[in-house]
C-alpha cells in the first residue's frame, strides 16, 4: 500500500475546505472535556452537580395531576421528525418520565406519532415506564400509534384527536415546523395545560404565545439530565457549559482581533497577534 498517497488523501479535504479543521478541533475539544468529567465521576471526585430550576419540567407533575382530577387523558406529541433527529431522542427521554407519572396516577395516555420508527421506540419507552411504575396492567399497545408521515395530515389528525378527546394536558416536545401553532392553538381552545419544548428557533415564538410552559432550545436537551437521578447524565451539562465558554471566548477574540486589524492593520504584524489573526481570519468564509 502506498502510504504517502494515503496520507495525501487524508489531508486533502482539509486543504479544500479549511473549515473542516475547525469542526474537528471543536469535536475533539468537547470529547476531551466529556471524557474528563466522565473520569472525575468514575473516580468519585465529582458527585454532585447543581442544575437551575426548569419550570417546564417541574410542571409535568402539575399537568398530569390536573388531568387526573378532570378525568381527561394526556396527549403527547414527539414532533414530526424521525428518530435520527436529536430533538426526537430528547423528547423520548421526557416521554418516559411523563408516561411513568401517567401510570402512577392511572391517567389515560394518548400518543399519535408521525414516523413509524419513532412509534416502535416510543411503544417500548412507554411500556418500560408503566413497568417501572408497577402498573404494566394498565399499558395497552394502542396508546402509541402511527398517523401519517405527511406534515399537515398529521397536524389535522392530532387536531381531530384533541377536539374529540379533550385532553387535560398536551405535551408538544420535539422538532416542529409550521404545524406548531396549529397544534398549540387547538390545544389552547380545548382548555388543556400545554407544555412545549423545541430547539426549532422559528417555532419557539408560537409555542411561547400559545403554551403555558416552554422548554427553550438547549433546555430540551438538558431535560433528560434534569429528570434523571444519575450523575452520569448530568455531566453533559458541565461539558455543555465548558464548550459554550470556549465558543464565547472564540467569538470575543475573533471580534477583537478583526477590529484591531480594521483599525490598526500594522498591529497584526506582532507575532502573537499575527497567529491569532491567522486562526480567526481562516474562519471567515470566502
Amino acid at each position: 500500500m502506498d502510504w504517502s498517497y494515503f496520507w495525501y488523501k487524508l489531508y486533502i479535504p482539509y486543504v479544500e475546505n479549511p473549515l473542516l479543521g475547525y469542526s474537528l478541533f471543536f469535536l475533539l475539544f468537547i470529547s476531551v472535556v466529556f471524557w474528563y468529567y466522565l473520569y472525575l465521576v468514575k473516580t468519585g471526585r465529582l458527585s454532585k452537580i447543581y442544575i437551575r430550576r426548569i419550570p417546564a419540567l417541574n410542571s409535568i407533575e402539575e399537568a398530569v395531576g390536573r388531568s387526573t382530577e378532570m378525568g381527561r387523558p394526556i396527549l403527547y406529541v414527539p414532533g414530526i421528525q424521525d428518530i435520527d433527529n436529536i430533538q426526537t431522542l430528547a423528547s423520548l427521554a421526557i416521554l418516559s418520565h411523563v408516561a411513568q407519572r401517567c401510570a402512577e396516577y392511572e391517567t389515560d395516555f394518548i400518543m399519535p406519532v408521525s414516523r413509524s420508527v419513532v412509534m416502535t421506540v416510543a411503544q417500548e419507552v412507554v411500556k418500560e415506564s408503566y413497568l417501572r411504575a408497577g402498573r404494566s396492567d394498565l399499558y395497552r399497545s394502542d396508546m402509541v400509534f402511527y398517523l401519517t408521515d405527511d406534515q399537515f395530515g398529521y397536524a389535522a389528525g392530532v387536531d381531530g384527536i384533541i377536539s374529540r378527546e379533550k385532553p387535560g394536558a398536551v405535551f408538544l416536545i420535539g422538532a416542529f415546523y409550521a404545524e406548531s401553532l396549529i397544534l398549540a392553538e387547538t390545544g389552547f381552545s380545548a382548555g388543556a395545560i400545554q407544555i412545549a419544548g423545541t430547539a426549532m428557533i422559528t417555532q419557539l415564538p408560537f409555542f411561547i404565545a400559545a403554551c403555558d410552559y416552554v422548554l427553550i432550545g438547549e433546555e430540551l436537551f438538558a431535560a433528560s439530565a434534569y429528570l434523571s437521578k444519575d450523575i452520569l447524565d448530568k455531566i453533559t451539562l458541565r461539558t455543555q457549559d465548558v464548550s459554550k465558554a470556549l465558543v464565547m471566548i472564540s467569538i470575543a477574540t475573533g471580534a477583537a482581533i478583526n477590529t484591531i486589524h480594521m483599525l490598526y492593520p500594522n498591529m497584526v504584524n506582532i507575532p502573537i497577534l499575527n497567529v491569532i489573526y491567522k486562526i480567526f481570519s481562516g474562519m471567515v468564509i470566502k
Partner: protein
Amino acid sequence: MIVIEIFKRITRRTIFLVVAIFLILGTIFSDVYWVKKINLEVLRKTITPASKQAYDFIESIPSNSVVLVSGDYGPSTRVEADPILENFLKQCFRRDIKVIAISLWPDGAQIVATKTRQIANQYNKIENQDYVIGGYVVGGAVAIEKMGVDLKDAIPLIANNPAPFLRDIKTAHDLSLVFSIAAGDTLVYYIRILKSRYGVNVSGGCTAVMAAEMYPYILSGQLIGLFGGLKGAADYEILESNPEPDKVSEAVKYMLTQSLIHALLIIFIIIANIVYIYDRLKFRRK
C-alpha cells in the same frame, strides 16, 4: 367606554371571521389594476438585500454550468414556493444554465417535474439535453451526504441519463450552485453538509416562517442569498422579469392580501393593548 366594552367581547371566533373576510376581500381586489400598480411601485423600491444577493449570484454563474434545484415542499406551501421555483427556472433557462431538478419530498417530485417541463417549454429547452428531472430522492439528510460523495448514486434517476452535461458531473462539488426551496429543514441540511463539509455554493428560498432562522447563515456567508416567503418570491419576479402591472403573477398580486392581513394584525394588537391598559388603569384607581 362602549367601544371598550365592544372590544372586550372580541373572541377567537370574531378574529377568525374578520381575518376570513379580509382574506377574501384581498384576494378579490388583488386583481385591480391600480392596486397592482401601487404594489409594484412599492415592491420595486424595497427589494430585500438577501433576495438581491441570491439573484446576483445566479446572474454571475457562467452559461452552460450545471445547477441542482431541489424543490423540497409539498402542496401545502405551493403558494409561497412555486413562484420562487418558477423564477429560478426562468433565470436559469434564460441564461442557458443546465438544470438538474429533484425533490427530497415525495409529494414535491410531481410539482417540480411539472413546473420544470412547463417553464422549459416556454424557453424551448429540451429534456435530457438542457435539463434533467431526478424525481423524488429518498433519504433526506443521508441523500445529501451521498451527493457530496457521488451525485449519481444519490439521484438514481439521472445515473444512466444520456444528457451530455452530466458526463462531467461526479459529485456535488462539480455543481455551480445548489438551490433548495425548502418548506422544512432541507435548506439547513444542504448548508450544514454540502456547504460546510464539501464547500458547495448553496442558495435557496424558504417559507416566510423560516426566513428569520436563515439570517445567521446568510450573514456568515454560508448561504449565498435567500428568497423568503411570498415577499422573496415577489422580489424575484421583479428582479427577473420586471413586469408591467397588468402582467404580474400571483406572487406580486397576493402581496395585497398579505398587506391587508398584516395591517389587520396590527389593528388587533392595538385593540388588545387598549383593552389591557384600560383595565389596568381601572384596577389601579380602585
